[in-house]
């Protein structure tokens, strides 16, 4: 119990240790999604084949 309480305290005060990796991970995933998006032309071209 003591361990968990201390860990919670640590998380509240040192947000960068868990919040930053979470943000970085989400940003990376978003970047990958955006960079592999189909071009605006794609839907028109798709109808050709």
């Amino acid at each position: 119990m003591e361990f968990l309480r201390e860990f919670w305290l640590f998380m509240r005060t040192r947000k960068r240790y868990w919040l930053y990796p979470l943000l970085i991970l989400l940003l990376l995933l978003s970047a990958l999604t955006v960079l592999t998006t189909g071009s605006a032309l794609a839907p028109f071209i798709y109808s050709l084949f």
Partner: protein
Amino acid sequence: MKKRLWLFKGLAVLLPVLLLGLAEGFLRLFGYGQDYRLFVEDPQHNGFLIMNQHASERYFTETANATVGNFEPFRQRKADGTFRIFVLGESTTIGYPYFHNGSFHRWLHYRLMHTFPNRNFEIINLSLTAVNSYTVFGFGKQLIDYEPDAILIYTGHNEYYGAMGVGSTSSLGGHPALVRLVLKLREFRLMQLLNRMLGGIRKTVSGENVDLRENLMKRMAADQQIPYGSEAYHQGIEQFKTNLNELCQLFSEHHIPVLISNLVSNEKDLKPFISAPGNAAQSAQEQFKQAQQAYAKGDFKAAKNRFVRAKELDLLRFRAPEAINQVIQELTAQYPNVTEVDTRAVFERYSPNGILGHETLLEHVHPNLYGYALLSDAFYEALKKRKLIAADWTNELSLAQLRQHMPITSVDSLKGVFEMLILKEGWPFNEPMPPEEKRAKTVEEQLAGALVVKQLSWRDAMDQLLAHYQNENNPQGALQVTEALSLEYPYDPGFYAQAGKLSLSLNQPEQAVWHLKKAFDLEPAFPTAQSLFISLLKLDRPDEALVYLRYAAAHNETQFSLTELQTFVEQLVSVKNRYLTDTTNVALSNQLAAGYLKFANADGAAKYVAKSLRTDPRNAVALQLKSQLQAIKN
């Protein structure tokens, strides 16, 4: 204390993974997103699988753009003696613009079924329009567990502009490893949620309505130009090579035979879409003009070279460059289980002066019905050469017979014509539609028109066409439609039984037996067995008739006893077996003739009377049987 601090730091860094895992779990628990696996259980056929309608969504940024393919059911547990083929590829592979029985795999299926009537074939086409080697790779690697006997591949034309292709994807299109990572990540519901959120933001920023104006499309297409030898050009080839190589390697490790076709495209009857200005050697338009001049002069070798060069230089890469065919050739040299299907050679053989054009192709890449028959022939010959199905192919249906008998209805054919008129009216063809003829449309034209604009489903169009032929008392037309339906729905015994009846009414007993056997195999029933043993006795195949006669006797639905007939046929089989080892024995041929005569089978009796009289023209018994036969006929 320091130790504990490090432990907390480690746990804190791991927390995001845990949080994302929890979010993924919640999304799955509440049914958000889609399962992208290739096959799902067929809700209409117990024990069968079909292609998952959401499987393609993984490859399209906007799921609304995702194309849907065929839903061809196959048994979850492969039945003994079944030859299972999976087909992978793009729009040509699925038979655009005809689809259904226009597709090459259906021509191949029909031919194989008639060449090997006692084998069961499952040909499952997993091709989709607008996809390229990423989808072929993604689908292909999931096939290992489904016991394929062969994989057929026709792909490459969509490499640049197909889903996730280098010409249709924003920035990372040229990096196969990253694209594959994204495709893998899209399996996660969290990634699907992220994709949808980003799509929503994109739409809000760019405005909800997509501008369909031609100028806009032209401008965007200009941004997508891929010059010959450019970085994007090479990235497209590399993307194709990477995906196909890994797929061939995987199939090779599992000893699965792969037949991969080289690609065909229009050479002489399609001018380049976009040509670079200036320098004649680099201008697709100039090369095309020179090719036409060489063709007019009869210099076909030079014409061919320049037509191909024009295609290579076309900046709008809707036709695969020659380098793609080169990759295919290299793969077949690298992997012993991979065979090159030389479709190009087949098309060249059937094209004037070996130059591909409108004789076999509708526009830039899609074959016409003749072309699809040729494409099926190329695969058929490759299967034969590899002796994959059997060593003996002597009773085969020839290409000419296939073209004559393949059940392509007028509606299927017209649908292709209408679809082409619509396609060519728009960018990048811009060919105005011919004025509408001022005459009443035929039923076939009306149905094809409704089919093109999606007012009718293919099934409804066929049902209405069948009803029309039945009303018109056109059994030949009705038989063609019924055969088309049986090819589309191979597990429905009703269509085979109906085709059998129609064949009998048209006095085509061989064809009737073929259909009725299929119906009986799927669903044994007394009426089918009865039609079968009668037809088989007429065809002098008593040993085959006996199987169905026994079934009919055991499930007799009439008041007449079949026991006497069964005893007679058993004797007939015994006499015939003796006769087959001693074909000059007149006593035996007379016995067979008399037997058939007893049950008023004039055709069977006449056959053996003729055989007796050929051996002994004065044989009294045979002469007497002949006069009895004539009396029956009179």
